């Protein structure tokens, strides 16, 4: 982890570090403008944002490290930020600091300085600090810390020029010596012992700043200890670990508390001193209600809090999917028309029929299948940016956590789960708001069980055909079944795969702030373009593959029994016998359903030779179905394998083929088991 591709040597790197909600992204946008790129850190789910800054004819590589409060070993984000600074050695680190919340923000600053990073501080939100009567003396702060401090108001682009100038200036200067906080005689004594051993061990000394490493060992940082343990060829490594253990025990006994607490405590002590010196007027201790407090009094109100949140979520859901629907339809039609036109043109040129079909259904159909997701993704991330940037997202998590936590999830899981009822693709992308890895992975894995809108036409087709009196109840029962299974699976996955991972809720409730158009638009664009780039190719490939299966060998009727797809269906059909739908037509419909769940309807229409509009006649007259087997088939449709777009987005968001394969496998097995159970138990109970 952390070992990323080094940029070419002549391009210098600026890294951005800072707490969450301090305007770091805003500064990143100000530095890089549109020249940015979103990817993933290798091997992890954490997003990596990179960009380029062009200043006085030179290009700089800018990297936005994950927003963190600390650089400890317990969260993926923090380890990434720490390793990047430690091992990739950016030429300068811009530490974005919230001026209204100096004390907590300076904690990360001291950690960066202790690592020996070449820091320039952006003292952001100076306007807000002034409004709140917090007067900070940037020069004094700069003197005390020995680094440049530049006051900024990133939302209004104030101070950015100065910040760039200072950062560039700083790159040319020699790296500063790491900050030395006085941890008191006893701790310092142990630091010295450890440092001496470290200095004698070149492999370790070259890799870590020695004082920093000594501190981490005293804190008992498990990641660092693991790293040292791996250095087996040098006997000194073991000596260092033994000494660290001894020093920790000695300090615990001597000072009556574990060294980690003592060190953090001292660090905050040092910071308190800085704040005393650099902040001229502290805000009055008198309880003055800020605008934020007033808003909170309403939106987290005992009786109003939940209804307000639910109404807001309903609005986001409705606006996202209602507004997206006509746009998506229009895109689909446009691509359908383009496909028709190209196929017609190819035919008129005398091209073989199979080529025309490939262009129409494979190529244009595939591109269309990618683009239909663009409107909901853009709209959704427009609203999510508003919620996040305004600060309301954290309140939503606060209000919902009691309920979601009882399902083993996080308050912030609610939004992705709800959005799943619209479409699992943007819903899974929305899990980015979850900071904790285990919370996020579980929410991604169970999201496909939320019944998306694409499944509704399939439900309606069968429910209206076989349960004309009880259509509503049948459809509702499927939604409910999905929710219940999601809760069950969520608990199971937490127990199985994420057992050791503690997921603390402890979260900042940032002050409400006005979102800026620029950051909202950039956020939307990032998501949309990343989807096309990363998920688009997978979707296109699978659409073309299924097209080939359904239309080959040359000359067969689309998806007929003689086609490869039909043959594949015949192979799988016996597997579904215990669920009551062991005929090749059902198997073929399920295979095309992977393209998009609503495709099940059209395929059934085609395989029964009646066309999509008459699919209900086809399934009724085929004699293949009973109400019970129809219901079992719907359960299968609900659960089995997510559609290809969802699979692609799971791949993108988990950054792992392994987890993607798992999501496909577990839904398939779970779907089959549930469908078989329902069919068999139903028969025992005398249903047919």
């Amino acid at each position, binding site marked *: 982890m952390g070992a990323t591709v080094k940029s070419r040597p002549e391009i210098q790197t600026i890294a951005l570090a800072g707490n969450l909600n301090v305007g770091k992204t805003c500064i990143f946008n100000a530095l890089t403008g549109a020249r940015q790129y979103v990817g993933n850190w290798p091997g992890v789910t954490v997003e990596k944002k990179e960009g380029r800054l062009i200043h006085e004819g030179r290009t700089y590589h800018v990297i936005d490290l994950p927003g963190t409060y600390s650089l*400890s070993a317990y969260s993926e984000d923090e380890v990434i930020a720490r390793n990047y600074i430690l091992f990739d050695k950016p030429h300068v680190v811009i530490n974005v600091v919230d001026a209204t919340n100096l004390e907590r923000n300076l904690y990360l600053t001291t950690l960066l300085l202790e690592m020996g990073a070449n820091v320039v501080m952006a003292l952001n939100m100076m306007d807000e600090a002034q409004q709140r009567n917090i007067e900070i003396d940037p020069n004094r702060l700069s003197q005390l810390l020995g680094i440049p401090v530049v006051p900024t108001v990133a939302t209004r682009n104030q101070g950015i020029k100065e910040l760039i100038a200072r950062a560039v200036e700083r790159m040319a200067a020699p790296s500063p010596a790491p900050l030395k906080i006085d941890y008191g005689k006893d701790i310092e004594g142990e630091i010295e012992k450890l440092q001496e051993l470290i200095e004698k061990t070149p492999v370790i000394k070259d890799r870590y700043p020695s004082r920093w490493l000594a501190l981490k060992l005293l804190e008992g940082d498990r990641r660092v200890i693991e790293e040292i343990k791996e250095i087996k060829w040098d006997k000194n490594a073991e000596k260092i670990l033994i000494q660290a253990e001894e020093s920790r025990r000695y300090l615990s006994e001597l000072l009556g508390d574990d060294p*980690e*607490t003592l060190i953090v*405590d001292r660090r905050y002590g040092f910071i308190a001193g800085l704040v005393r010196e650099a902040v001229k007027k502290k805000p009055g201790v008198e309880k003055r209600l800020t605008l934020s407090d007033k808003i909170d009094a309403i939106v987290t109100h005992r*009786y109003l809090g939940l209804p307000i949140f639910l109404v807001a979520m309903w609005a986001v859901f409705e606006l996202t999917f209602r507004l997206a629907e006509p746009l998506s339809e229009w895109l689909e039609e446009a691509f359908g028309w383009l496909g028709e036109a190209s196929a017609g043109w190819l035919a008129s040129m005398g091209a073989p029929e199979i080529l025309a079909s490939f262009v129409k259904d494979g190529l244009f159909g595939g591109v269309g299948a990618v683009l239909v997701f663009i409107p909901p993704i853009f709209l959704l991330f427009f609203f999510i940016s508003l919620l996040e940037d305004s600060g309301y997202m954290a309140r939503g998590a*606060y209000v919902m956590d009691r309920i979601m936590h009882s399902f083993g999830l996080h308050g912030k899981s609610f939004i992705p789960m709800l959005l799943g009822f619209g479409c699992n693709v943007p819903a899974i992308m929305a899990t980015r708001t979850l900071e904790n890895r285990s919370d996020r992975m579980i929410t991604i894995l169970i999201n496909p069980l939320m019944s998306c809108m694409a499944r509704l036409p399939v439900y309606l087709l069968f429910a209206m055909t076989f349960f004309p009196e009880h259509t509503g109840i049948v459809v509702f029962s499927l939604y409910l079944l999905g929710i219940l299974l999601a809760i069950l699976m969520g608990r199971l996955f937490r127990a199985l795969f994420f057992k050791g991972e503690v997921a*603390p809720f402890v*979260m900042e409730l*940032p002050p409400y702030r006005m979102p800026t158009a620029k950051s909202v638009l950039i956020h939307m664009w990032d998501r949309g373009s990343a989807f096309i780039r990363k998920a688009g190719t997978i979707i296109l490939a699978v659409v073309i593959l299924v097209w080939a299966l359904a239309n080959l060998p040359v000359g067969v009727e689309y998806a007929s029994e003689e086609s490869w797809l039909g043959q594949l269906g015949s192979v799988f059909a016996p597997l579904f016998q215990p669920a009551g739908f062991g005929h090749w037509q059902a198997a073929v419909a399920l295979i095309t359903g992977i393209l998009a769940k609503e495709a099940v309807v059209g395929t059934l229409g085609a395989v029964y030779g009646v066309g999509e509009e008459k699919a209900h006649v086809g399934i009724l007259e085929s004699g293949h179905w009973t109400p019970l087997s129809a219901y079992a088939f719907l359960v299968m449709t609900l659960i089995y394998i997510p559609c290809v777009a969802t699979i692609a987005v799971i791949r993108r968001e988990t950054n792992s083929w392994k987890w993607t394969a798992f999501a496909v496998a577990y839904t398939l097995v779970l779907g089959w088991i549930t469908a078989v159970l329902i069919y068999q138990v139903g028969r025992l109970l005398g249903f047919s």
Partner: protein
Amino acid sequence: MGIKEGCKTLKDLQKGERGKVVRIAAPGPLRRRLMDMGVVPGAEITVEGAAPLGDPIEVTVKGYHLTLRREEAQFIEVEPC
């Protein structure tokens, strides 16, 4: 690392009550997260309220608002105890 008998924890504080952090008896990662967020021994902490369903709670510490679950707050020993 249990809580000493008779000691108050953050969980016991009522809305509007204020306390001084004495000790954090939480297991490793949670304790570290709390300390990194400024909940360190000696820090003053005020309970601002609770979510509509009673959990999590909202506190102010080091001049900012923080939310945590009651099951997390019970590890934070506060004065007067």
